[in-house]
């Protein structure tokens, strides 16, 4: 990529034929900055094109084929894979499981994350320890988390049910009763709320204290301060976590696969733990229906795209950006 010099002399010099040249447009400072930004971003852009956009477009093509990685011939079959998804009960079941999980996990993560961040914000010097403690689950390998929760959630001797029984509540069978498997998985994922806590904590530290002082002068109580000052001022962070947690929830895989489909090949959970990406993975790498799995991936992409679009559109009503219009 050639970068035009900003030297006025070079830009106004004549052509080889010595005749008058068309006046060359001089880049403004902003354009030059953009150009340099593109230059510096180009490694990422090239990587994105090769390792992300390319495979994505390839998978889009595969979604219209009967591609089986073990068979040399691949046939174009139009929208057959998409039609098959409509009638595939496992797609419906796995999509419902995933949406159910997302509906509870995302608000749960936001609420618990915010409560913990508010507590962290108030405890002063001890916050450092608790920040680390809250974040530790996020750096625990997902398979280890799955294995750990197989112990914690055991319906008979698991710690959770022992606690519930100690207060007179009957502990459900979190791992084997289809009605309680998804709630159990939601509990497990809420354990990894640490990254959301850290984001909220950072956002809370940026709320100007003067706003709280003004609110107190106006007679606002704690709840009113929280509702009218804190929430609007960290709404950008809430919006961010809403988007990333929604996408992550819709792509849930590793922990559940490790718990119910990995070593536990019997799949005792049955359909209750069949999440969308798990079914996609099984189609691709166990059943070798790579074309069908590609179509499933694009359906998920579309679902995520629509949900994200709605979230972005509605955000204009409730997200406050300092310095924004």
């Amino acid at each position, binding site marked *: 990529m050639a970068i035009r010099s900003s030297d006025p002399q070079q830009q106004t010099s004549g052509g080889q034929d010595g005749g008058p040249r068309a006046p060359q447009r001089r880049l403004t400072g902003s354009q030059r900055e953009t150009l340099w930004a593109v230059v510096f971003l180009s490694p990422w852009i090239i990587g994105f094109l090769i390792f992300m956009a390319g495979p994505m477009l390839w998978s889009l093509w595969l979604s219209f084929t009967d591609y*089986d*990685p*073990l*068979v*040399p011939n691949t046939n174009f079959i139009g929208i057959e894979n998409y039609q098959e998804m409509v009638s595939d009960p496992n797609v419906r079941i796995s999509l419902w499981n995933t949406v159910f999980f997302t509906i509870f996990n995302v608000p749960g993560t936001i609420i618990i994350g915010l409560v913990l961040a508010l507590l962290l914000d108030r405890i002063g010097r001890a916050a450092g320890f608790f920040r680390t403690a809250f974040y530790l689950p996020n750096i625990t390998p997902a398979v280890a988390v799955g294995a750990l929760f*197989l112990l914690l959630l*055991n*319906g*008979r*001797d698991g710690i959770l049910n022992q606690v519930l029984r100690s207060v007179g509540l009957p502990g459900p*069978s979190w*791992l*084997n*009763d*289809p009605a309680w498997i998804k709630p159990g998985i939601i509990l497990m994922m809420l354990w990894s709320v640490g990254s959301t806590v850290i984001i909220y904590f950072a956002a809370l530290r940026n709320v100007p204290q003067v706003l709280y002082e003004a609110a107190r002068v106006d007679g606002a109580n704690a709840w009113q301060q929280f509702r009218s000052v804190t929430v609007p001022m960290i709404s950008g962070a809430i919006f961010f976590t809403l988007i990333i947690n929604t996408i992550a929830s819709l792509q849930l895989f590793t922990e559940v696969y490790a718990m119910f489909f990995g070593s536990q*090949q*019997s*799949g*005792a*959970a*049955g*359909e*209750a733990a069949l999440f969308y990406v798990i079914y996609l993975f*099984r189609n691709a*790498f*166990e*059943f*070798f229906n790579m074309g069908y799995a590609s179509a499933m991936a694009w359906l998920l992409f579309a679902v995520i795209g629509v949900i994200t679009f709605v979230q972005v559109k509605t955000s204009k009503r409730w997200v406050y950006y300092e310095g924004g219009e």
Partner: protein
Amino acid sequence: MSPRHKLLVALLTAALLLAACGGGEEEAAPQASGGASGGSESAVEVSGPLFAFGFGYQSGDEIAKVRIDRFREEFPDARVTFSESGFEEQPFLSALASGEPPDMVNMSRNTIGTFIARGVLAPLDDCIAQEGIDMGVFYESALAQVTVDGTVYALPEFLNSRIWILSNPAFEEAGLDPQNIDLSDWEAIADANEQLTKRNGNRLNRIGIDPKLPEFLPLWSWANDTPMISEDGLTSQLEAPGVAEALEFSNSLHEPAGGRTQFLDFRDTWDFFGEKNQFAADQLAANPYEQWYLNVLADVSPDVDITVRPFETRGGEPFTWSDGNAWAIPAEASNPEAACAFIATMTNAETWIEAAEVRTRNRNRDNEPNLGVYTANREADEVIFEDLNLGEWPNFEQAVQTVLEVQENGLSIPPSPAAAQYEEAWISAVNEVMTGGGEPAAALQAADQEAQEAIDAAAR
């Protein structure tokens, strides 16, 4: 590209090809395979790098180490390396897709049909001739799993058999005789299950009989004289009434424990591989299980008081469900002759016997019961188990004898072009029934349709 450039590229390509071809010349003179590796009459080159996928070799495993060492000794010019884990589809597909398949692959015989149907694995006709392998030494049930239309595609390695393991103290406490209980009589099994189950109020303290669902449905179905798939692996028979009956009965064995969830919640707490395993801790009275678990028991609780009995059909015929792994050579493997020598060495009788002898020495040194090595090679088994001395552990001596006798009556799941989908279909049906989501006949009928569609599609 100019003609000059084209010429340059052509020359460079030729030079690279020559260089690649010439690489082997630096190797020592090739050795002839055969002899101890199977008595081959033809001399072939066994040299160069060899990559084995799916074996997950660890030198702490004496049975693997002795066999690999033997190959390395016999063929020092062949440099064999191994993948770090057992067989996984994802990396195997990546290797195939990248045009760099492994030289040999170790995979489950239950799913090998999928790869045979897609032409991924090479027929072993040439290999069998090269190494002079006598295929008659392999157990029929094992050989059937790797043979399609009369062509052998893999050499069976281990032989895994399912047998009943019964806890003598639990049976005696319930006034039952573990040696003589009629295991072909399903009513007797159900009655014994009631008697053997131990509860304290709502708390389950011992499971009577664990039917091992969903994974052991084929065993119950065979016991009911109904194979779940045709012999050629192309027709699902899940809709057969005998399968539904087997599912209904085996699932009913969960009831005395208070239902499936209580049953599974309790089972999940067992120290399966530890000293306080379910038999040692009196948490289970009986279950059908793979014979390798006897090795676990011998290792962690050698004094456990058990009786091993063969599984029986309802007509009283003892039988077992056999499976295990097998060694195959991908069709596009770059060093098939050397790979053939390797898989022949890993599965021939002499190598097995040598490995078993090392295990015997190690166990004797540690004063631990040695239950032998269950290979798919009958010739090897005859020698390995001939001199087995379990006098100090009569409980395991009886167990080993039972396994040896019943593995002659092994049944196996035939190679199917859609093995994984077929299995997924019936497991889903069993889970649906176990969770109260459907009746056996209806669930299996739906599974049958799903499985057949998958088989038909894969066969095409």
